[in-house]
């Protein structure tokens, strides 16, 4: 029986701080100006440093602390470069970049003086194939040249830099550090249905980079990329769980006030049972999330499949809870003024980034049954 961690006092305190702070800074509806200020305050609270080891200027806390923060950000619909910088770029550096690159870039990302994103295959599925990488890199004498267009880059219009997993000519791939102000790089913002997930296009047309821009770790690079994307998927599951929890809270509260046929609609058994089913899915996903965390801390072999469990169930829970939140709010659930629609859009977004549920299921099936599930015939 692997030990399940009871939250430490520090984790409880972190959650309380996060809940209180984020509730006062809900920014899903407001403009982008406030986002920078929010990020600044997060940096002052030390949040961007949770995952970064002390040797690279971080706090060296565990992934459990990042989960706490992301759950709360999911709950409060926070729009922030936190996810791309902390859940995506930092793990990629830690697991796939050279020691030197970590020394160079992690301190700034940990103190919040810079933000970063990652470019690899569209949607950043850990199950990506080499040929799906959006960008190719060629060596041209004493420089690298990047070519290709990444259509939907997470936080792509705001990040200060991107770490680009690019295909090389010889069929292997490498990691490149690309500042947002690189000459020749064409960057543009994209509208998103989920406004809390800004996206941007990064287009490279023979953009030159210095040799030292290539920073992939010599050994185990691809495995490191895959592991980093799996960790990002796990942290996304934390956000999904937080969002699902919020949908349930909102729905219980709304149905407890809304009256129809002379009584609050929370008293109707159909409404109660739907909320109860939301809770079943939510708590099941939450258990799975903790299971994946426990596996990760024990360094258990099957971490990837435990992450699959968390991701599939968190995706299902968030989609279900957001959809039911709209339905049970009735007419107003469909309007801009109420939050269910924001969660609904986020749940949809989260359902297919970092591997959709079927991708994760297929990976589990391959492990349980052997063989390789060919999704496409």
């Amino acid at each position, binding site marked *: 029986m692997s030990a399940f961690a009871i939250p430490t006092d520090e984790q409880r305190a972190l959650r309380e701080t996060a809940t209180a702070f984020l509730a006062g800074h809900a920014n899903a509806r407001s403009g982008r100006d406030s986002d920078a200020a929010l990020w600044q305050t997060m940096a002052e609270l030390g949040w961007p440093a949770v995952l970064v080891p002390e040797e690279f200027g971080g706090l060296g806390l565990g992934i459990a602390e990042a989960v706490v923060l992301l759950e709360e950000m999911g709950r409060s619909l926070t729009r922030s470069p936190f996810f791309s910088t902390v859940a995506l770029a930092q793990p990629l550096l830690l697991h796939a970049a050279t020691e030197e690159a970590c020394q160079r870039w992690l301190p700034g990302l940990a103190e919040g003086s810079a933000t970063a994103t990652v470019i690899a295959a569209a949607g950043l599925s850990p199950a990506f194939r080499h040929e799906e990488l959006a960008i190719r890199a060629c060596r041209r004498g004493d420089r690298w040249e990047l070519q290709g267009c990444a259509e939907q880059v997470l936080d792509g219009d705001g990040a200060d830099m991107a770490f680009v997993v690019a295909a090389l000519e010889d069929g292997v791939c490498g990691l490149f550090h690309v500042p947002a102000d690189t000459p020749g790089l064409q960057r543009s913002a994209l509208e*998103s249905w989920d406004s809390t997930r800004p996206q941007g296009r990064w287009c490279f047309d023979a953009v030159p980079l210095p040799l030292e821009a290539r920073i992939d770790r010599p050994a185990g690079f691809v495995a490191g990329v895959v592991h980093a994307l799996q960790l990002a998927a796990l942290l996304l599951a934390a956000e999904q769980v937080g969002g699902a929890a919020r949908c349930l809270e909102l729905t219980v509260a709304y149905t407890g006030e809304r009256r129809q046929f002379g009584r609050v609609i929370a008293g109707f058994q159909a409404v109660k049972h739907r909320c109860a089913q939301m809770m079943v899915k939510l708590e099941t996903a939450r258990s799975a999330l903790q299971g994946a965390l426990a596996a990760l801390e024990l360094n258990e072999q099957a971490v990837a499949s435990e992450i699959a469990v968390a991701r599939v169930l968190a995706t299902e829970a968030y989609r279900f809870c957001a959809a039911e939140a*709209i339905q049970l709010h009735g007419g107003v*659930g469909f309007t801009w003024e109420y939050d269910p629609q924001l969660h609904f859009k986020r749940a949809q977004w989260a359902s297919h980034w970092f591997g959709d549920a079927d991708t994760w299921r297929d990976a589990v099936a391959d492990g349980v049954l052997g063989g390789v599930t060919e999704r496409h015939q």
Partner: protein
Amino acid sequence: MNKAMPDEQQFRAEVADWMERHLCGRFAPLRHRGGPGDEMAYPELRREWEAEMAAGGWIGLGWPQAHGGRDLPLALQVAFHEEYARAGGPGRMGHIGETLLAPTLIAHGTPEQQARFLPGIRDGRVFWCQGYSEPGAGSDLAAISTRCWLEDGEWRLRGQKLWTSLAHESEWIFVLARSTPGSVGREGLSFLLVPLDQPGVEIRPIRQMTGEAEFNEVFFDDARTAADCIVGKPGDGWRIAMALLGFERGLSTLGQQMHFAHELQLLVAAARSCGADRDVGVRRRIADAWIGLRALRANALRIFARGENATGPEALVYKYAWSNWHRDLGQLAMDVMGIAGDVPASEDPWRRLQQVFFFSRADTIYAGTNEIQLNIIAERGLGMPKG
């Protein structure tokens, strides 16, 4: 029904031909536009289209000839809706007036009311919207609290209506309001016809999840209408309103299904263009969507086969079936699009499919939520206890 009816096939050909010759040129952008979830599209052009339709003789197909209609049998009206949709006919700006208010006036209005209001509707000049729901009276319509009273020879209204689609494009609204002070439930309601362009009426758009505003709130602050702008007597409101809801059902069903079929075609095109059509799971879900749509069609044909005056179990389940089918279609479409669906698209198939995804969330809410529908099915269809 005592005159020779044009043959159905011939009639269908006639509709298709007219549509081909008129839904083109300046009207071409309207093709497949303006349906539910897309009502913000080209409002001015769609008003003109209504007049075009009227000139073609396509408004009031089922009305008695005495009221300027063509008195066509149900089968031909259905055929018209189906061919209209098949040709990509735009969402009808005038449908509330033509299919809801007009039959109500024909059945319950005075000759003066009929003479005054029907021609504007039939000519595609005057548009109507519907004032039923209120913040506290959604599924529970009888909880209406908008008040009306006679004062100085006029009706006055005070209160708020909600989910009024097309209010910003309409000239008139029909309103269910409480005329007997202190009355509760279905008693003491009246059915009034109220002009929108007056100081006592304020229309505020309700911004929906897509960011657009297809619905409105309508506020009545001592709004006025003439004493004779009441259908039926004071206190008859509930009966009139229920009769009107009865007119709503069925007729446009097959036309709606043609729209659904069009959306399913768009979905197939999207799946092909991104390769999702090679995923076994997606193939089976698309098969289920196709199967569900064929069943909806068979269900509608069962309703029509039963005739106008009979209601069978298939009519009772229909709203629940189509709205959930459509909602599932939206989710499937989004799953097929994958990350490409995250970015608002301006071209079909993507544009329409994204609209279906978001707007179909309202399908299981308006006109009786899923929960209300299941109550009705259990109580009326299966005779289970109320409440």
